[in-house]
């Protein structure tokens, strides 16, 4: 399971600064279990946004937001509401935010921090898209994760090592993550996000408590330990 926790509301509202109309996307998978992106949290988010003076153009909760093909299918009936919105607030793990960004040409704000994936990668399996850093930066980077997309995990822009849009590390198979981010932000008319200095990451957040770092099997193993072998 991909464990996520809700970002502080002031941080989320900060992302939405200058945007009046928002479409909310939730997730019936892990985010519902974590109570960060299920029906109840989407309803709560709608209320919070309206209290802050925003118009919620619509909302939906997708079975598995990490399944890119499914996201596209599920968002299609909401096309008008999405087109009417300035941006999307996506309430799920980092993979789900990126899957949404990949199918919608709108700004996608993450509402959650992904704390641990418990060995799972979500349903968009083609590549590693989230490193459970616990302090999601997808809002700054147009919905493309710089921690996984950049081989140096740089958070303040590209190094000088890209050539023809390819990364210096594996040029044959790896695109420059920051070039992808740059092109995406340019397309969304949000290049100003690349001008903001991102402070050093709190790597302590990548060391969550053991119970969050483990799968459900870990809890069972703990119980087994308590029962002495016959």
């Amino acid at each position, binding site marked *: 399971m991909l464990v996520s926790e809700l970002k502080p509301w002031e941080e989320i509202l900060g992302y939405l600064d200058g945007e009046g109309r928002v479409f909310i996307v939730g997730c019936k998978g892990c985010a519902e279990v974590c109570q960060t992106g299920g029906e109840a949290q989407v309803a709560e988010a709608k209320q919070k946004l309206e209290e802050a003076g925003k118009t919620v153009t619509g909302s939906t909760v997708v079975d598995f937001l990490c399944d890119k093909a499914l996201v596209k299918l599920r968002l299609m009936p909401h096309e008008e509401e999405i087109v009417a919105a300035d941006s999307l607030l996506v309430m799920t793990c980092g993979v789900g935010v990126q899957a949404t960004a990949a199918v919608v040409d709108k700004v996608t704000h993450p509402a959650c921090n992904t704390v641990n994936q418990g060995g799972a990668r979500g349903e968009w399996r083609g590549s590693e898209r989230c490193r459970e850093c616990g302090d999601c930066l997808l809002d700054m980077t147009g919905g493309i994760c710089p921690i996984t997309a950049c081989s140096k995990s740089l958070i303040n822009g590209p190094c000088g090592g890209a050539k023809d849009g390819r990364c210096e590390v594996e040029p044959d198979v790896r695109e420059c993550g920051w070039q992808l981010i*740059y092109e995406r932000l340019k397309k969304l008319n949000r290049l100003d996000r*690349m001008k903001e200095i991102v402070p050093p990451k709190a*790597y302590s957040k990548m060391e969550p408590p053991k119970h969050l770092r483990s799968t459900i099997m870990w809890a069972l193993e703990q119980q087994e330990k308590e029962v002495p072998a016959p």
Partner: protein
Amino acid sequence: MSLRDKLASGKFVVTTEVGPPKGVDIEEMSKNAGLLKGKIDAANVTDQQSSVMRLGSLAGCYLLKQWGLEPVFQATCRDRNRLALESDFLNAYVMGIENALCLTGDHVSLGDHPDAKPVFDLDSVSLLQAVKELEQGHDLGGKELKGSPHFFLGASVTPGADPVEPQILKMEKKVKAGAQFFQTQAMYEPKQFEEFMKSVSHLNVPVLVGIVLLRSAAMARFMNKNVAGIFVPESLIEEMDKAEKKADKGIEIAARLINEMKDMCQGVHIMAIGMEDRVPAILTAAGL
């Protein structure tokens, strides 16, 4: 006069690079330093360039100072986390090193220790910020320092990158974070450099144009294929190819490029990559 003072006074400055040895035999490094003494304004000491393990920048800077040169401490984020980097800037200061160039660094996979763990805890922008914090008397942990260091802080930029806009956006961040001068990646196209300088003129920060001395046509082709942000035009490659005396031709081209670009910027940074002994000849040929 220090590098900072010279740039402030409007003097066109010359910096170059000294690559420390792989090992502890510093004889050649010392000989090269002797050749450069009095002819250049400052010399960068590379920080395990291309991720190849060698004598470090800090010790190299200390040696250059003893040999009468003004060093520029190159610090990359590749090998040290924020504790080690902050500490090394304190180390540099107590050794009397006044200039530093804050870099991200090449990936370890490109060097001779590809299995090493790449660090990149900070990046070039946050390293500049960290040093600024130290200058203001506290570290990244927010703790107060007993005596704070002061540096003339530099950064790098790749004017030949395609697209160049992300480089410029990052350059703006570097200035905001504390960069006081820039040394560029190698430039072989004055027109492209002129355009770049126009697009960063609002930053009002001194830029030292990077010149990489050519050894041969093969080297130029290799750089075109493998080194990001470097493009040697075919006309220069042909010139190198046809030249009988490759060394002289390389020097002539470097001097010509310097003369074509010196009115566009505030200085030149010559990277001779193992041919440091040819730097004085470049300066003579360029009339510097």
